[in-house]
């Protein structure tokens, strides 16, 4: 089943985007960076969240939902058709697993740090980088601890700074957010549990000192966007302009509206996420600090249940652990990536961290994944 899903994606990409099959080609690494270049190297990871299925994305039926990725990004990318997530299929724990390279077992609904060192800690400690070099833009309350683990010898002070755009908004509106409520969606995974969004002095300082935005400017922009992920991308762009992080991690979440059971809202969110990914890639090309030296990775944290699985309710959830919910894809594009390639071999989602380590020159000692040699 998982292989079938991968093959379907491959055939689709080959026929519609004209990509080549990677397993038939071998060549030397396209990376020709020296040490100085490596220091300028930027990595952006976007999790295409939360949870999108093949049939609404890269399978033939889904193509209408991802025109930007298909027509603009895929031809520039190396595409991996089978990325398996063998861990717990909850958004926080799965994203934490992506960030540590270990299938974490933390409580998905608790604000606890990952148990193993994150990619941000490896990066900063091994390469002696400052706090401003790594940032996470995360969607909801639960993600505020994802920047660093509590692992001894890594942990506090060595991780990424986390920015929660909804908290910024909440702080900026001082709780009276009537006009902005549509941007404060939170926690779709348990849609009946909708805690109040926090936000106070710390967030206001982030806005002023880091994003270099006045409350008025931020509010004025927030008025023009239609979803939490749009707000996240706006904040990510500001971070790129003001802080130029070397390692920027953006977790999208609009798609998880699927838990409400409304298929049209789920598909709308996929289309929006597709557009936002392409938009961010354009920003990369336009920013001098990023143009030409940035590699961007786009991958869902996992899929969603298959229509046919009796244990689930189709697209609505990701509870069965069936192949459709565990199998997804990854797109890598930009600096050092062979464009127009499709790779079929199965990968694990925890392979991302060791791959980033190999690309950036740090050693993710505790990661249980393996570097993706096609990208090295």
């Amino acid at each position: 089943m998982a292989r079938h899903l991968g093959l379907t994606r491959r055939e689709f990409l080959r026929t519609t985007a004209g990509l080549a099959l990677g397993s038939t080609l071998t060549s030397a690494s396209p990376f020709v960076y020296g040490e100085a270049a490596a220091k300028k190297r930027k990595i952006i990871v976007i999790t295409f969240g939360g949870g999108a299925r093949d049939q609404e994305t890269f399978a033939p039926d889904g193509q209408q939902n991802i025109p930007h990725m298909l027509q603009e990004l895929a031809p520039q990318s190396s595409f991996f058709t089978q990325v398996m997530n063998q861990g717990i299929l909850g958004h926080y724990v799965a994203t934490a697993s992506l960030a540590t390279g270990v299938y974490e077992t933390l409580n998905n609904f608790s604000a606890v740090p990952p148990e193993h060192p994150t990619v941000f800690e490896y990066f900063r400690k091994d390469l002696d980088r400052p706090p401003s070099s790594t940032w996470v833009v995360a969607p909801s309350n639960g993600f505020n601890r994802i920047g660093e683990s509590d692992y001894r010898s890594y942990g506090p002070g060595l991780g990424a700074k986390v920015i929660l755009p909804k908290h910024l908004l909440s702080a900026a509106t001082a709780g009276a957010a009537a006009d902005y409520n549509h941007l404060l969606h939170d926690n779709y995974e348990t849609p009946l549990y909708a805690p109040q969004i926090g936000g106070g002095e710390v967030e206001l300082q982030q806005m002023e000192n880091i994003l270099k935005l006045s409350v008025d400017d931020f509010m004025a922009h927030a008025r023009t966007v239609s979803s939490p992920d749009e707000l996240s991308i706006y904040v990510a762009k500001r971070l790129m302009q003001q802080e130029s992080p070397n390692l920027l991690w953006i977790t999208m979440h609009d798609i998880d509206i699927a838990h409400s059971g409304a298929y049209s809202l789920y598909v709308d969110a996929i289309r929006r996420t597709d557009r936002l990914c392409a938009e961010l890639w354009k920003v990369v090309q336009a920013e001098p600090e990023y143009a030409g030296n940035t590699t961007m990775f786009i991958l869902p944290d996992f899929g969603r249940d298959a229509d046919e699985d009796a244990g689930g309710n189709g697209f609505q959830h990701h509870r069965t652990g069936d192949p459709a919910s565990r199998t997804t894809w990854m797109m890598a594009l930009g600096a050092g990536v062979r464009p127009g390639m499709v790779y079929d071999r199965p990968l694990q989602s925890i392979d991302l961290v060791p791959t980033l380590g190999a690309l950036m020159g740090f050693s993710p000692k505790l990661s249980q994944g393996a570097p993706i040699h096609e990208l090295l």
Partner: protein
Amino acid sequence: MLPTDLKAEQFAGYPPKARKLAVAHLGTLQQLPLSFLPSFLREIIDYDFKFPAERTAIDQELLTLSSLTHAQLKNWFQGFSQLSLSSKFEKLDWINQPAQFVEQLSAYLWTTHQLDAFREAAVTYGNRLQKGEPEQIAVHRLGIAIIGQGVVSYDEPLFLNLRKHGTYFRQIKPENGVELLLAAVEARAKAHPVPYGHWYVDGGHAAGHSSLLSCLSFQQMEPVRAALLRDIQTETAKPGMGPEELHTHMARLSPADLGIDKTGDEVLERFQVKLLTEGSGTQIFSTTFVQWATREVLRRAQAVTLFVRFAPRQRQRPMNELLSGTGSNLEFDPVGSLIDANMAAYYQWINQQRLPQSEQSSFLVWFEGHNQALVVSPSLPRGTESNSTLDLGQLLSLATG
């Protein structure tokens, strides 16, 4: 405590029929592994409030298990027995609180990477159970879905997932469609009376209908939904409350807790509560309510007739606002609702196909007020289109031909 230590008096807290059943099969229950038994007890403990089809299934399952030798039972449950469970599970009150046990077991299986093994064991067990003779049903099963209420025009293709399975009609006469279909459904219920066998689910106000139909409507349940949302708000505000605690709290709610008046039909009352407390989004979106209700009516009651009419759901608003039930001037999203319902109709057909004798079942979906419909039926070809000009009554006759 392990299943081998089970004693009859430990079922004293079960409702009468459930207690009697458990005690009668005590010897069999004692031989089942801890990784399986609480899931089964979760069904048995609600036996008194289950639909006839569910009771028959539990009876049949117990009968089958009781007929197996100890060695055969060991073989059947090998997959479950091989799962490694922490000893903390032996200390839980899995006899009286099997649902809570199963919730914790589920989290544990995910955490210990044993979910796939559990899943495989469950599928193998389910397949073995289903090998027996399928039960005969009173009449070939029929599903009807009416989608798109309030949509004036829609240019995108509909029923794409279903087209390969049936015949697509493009010149249906829409006049009196709802009335014609409902009348036919009522006639079936009259001709083939089956307790909880014939259902009508409506996403808005239910149309006038025969008392022979078991009926659920989103509007009729509005006070219950409001009571539940108020309860959720209160609970969420309590210190220490999280999503898992809220879920456990909701699982314990009874019809009386949500202000459901006693109708004398406790089975239906409890079913209504479960639709709202177990379904995700059923409290706020009518399309989700209808989709989940159809799934559960088919899965649990095994309806032989299921007439479903979708209505426009409210437009997406912030989750906090949706849950609080605040916000005046409720706006609707007819086109979004049509897209939701188009997918939900496909799921209705899939769920119908999971039931016995699915090869004889028929399914009809119609874009309300318009000319497009699709029928999946053993009497009609698959993957074809038809330009026949038929009214909905004639189309239904063709479907059930």
